[in-house]
């Protein structure tokens, strides 16, 4: 069964460093999303991406964040200068036009 794949599963980074979280969505999907879940809290929407551009972003998704679909298969989330409060589980999701979103297993980001 096709699945959304995220790498790495866990990343530790120093405050102020740039990180790139990678996702390979399901191949025929059209809509792509990033969500995050701070430990013990609910899952929050960050950004949606369709037709090679951002379709919606939340207040959390400030200038420190960016997304890219560089080669038609990968979908990346970049955090330019990480802060302690960026520590969270980051989930990538993708969907076809008329189905539910499928989530990856997540990348746990720890900023120290």
């Amino acid at each position, binding site marked *: 069964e096709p699945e959304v794949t995220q790498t790495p599963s866990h990343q530790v980074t120093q405050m102020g460093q740039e990180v790139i979280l990678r996702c390979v969505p399901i191949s025929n999907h059209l*809509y792509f999303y990033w969500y995050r879940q701070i430990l013990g809290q609910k899952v929050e929407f960050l950004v949606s991406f369709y037709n090679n551009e951002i379709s919606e972003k939340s207040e959390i998704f400030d200038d420190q964040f960016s997304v890219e679909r560089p080669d038609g298969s990968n979908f990346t989330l970049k955090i330019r200068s990480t802060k302690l409060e960026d520590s969270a589980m980051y989930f990538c999701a993708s969907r076809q036009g008329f189905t*539910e979103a499928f989530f990856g297993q997540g990348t746990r980001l720890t900023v120290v």
Partner: protein
Amino acid sequence: AQSVTQPDIHITVSEGASLELRCNYSYGATPYLFWYVQSPGQGLQLLLKYFSGDTLVQGIKGFEAEFKRSQSSFNLRKPSVHWSDAAEYFCAVAGGNFGNEKLTFGTGTRLTIIP
């Protein structure tokens, strides 16, 4: 703005007993409703979804949910829980065409199963 309320933060149920997890949503148009389950350290797995049609939807692992528009609810049920059902359960709502807008999640209900 859309929102989801899961009033029960933590529920404890005996193995073999029935289960109902509550979910209330707020959305101005036709909602697309979902229940996801998250086991510790794992990702989000879809249990079931409501897009349209029959208001009682069946999902995986023996779960079902009923959409009640008049009560703005989408409660999750299972007639007999198993120890493996222990997990965090999230209700979510989306809008747009076939729910292609962002998912808004509730705060989750943690389910503990006792022998």
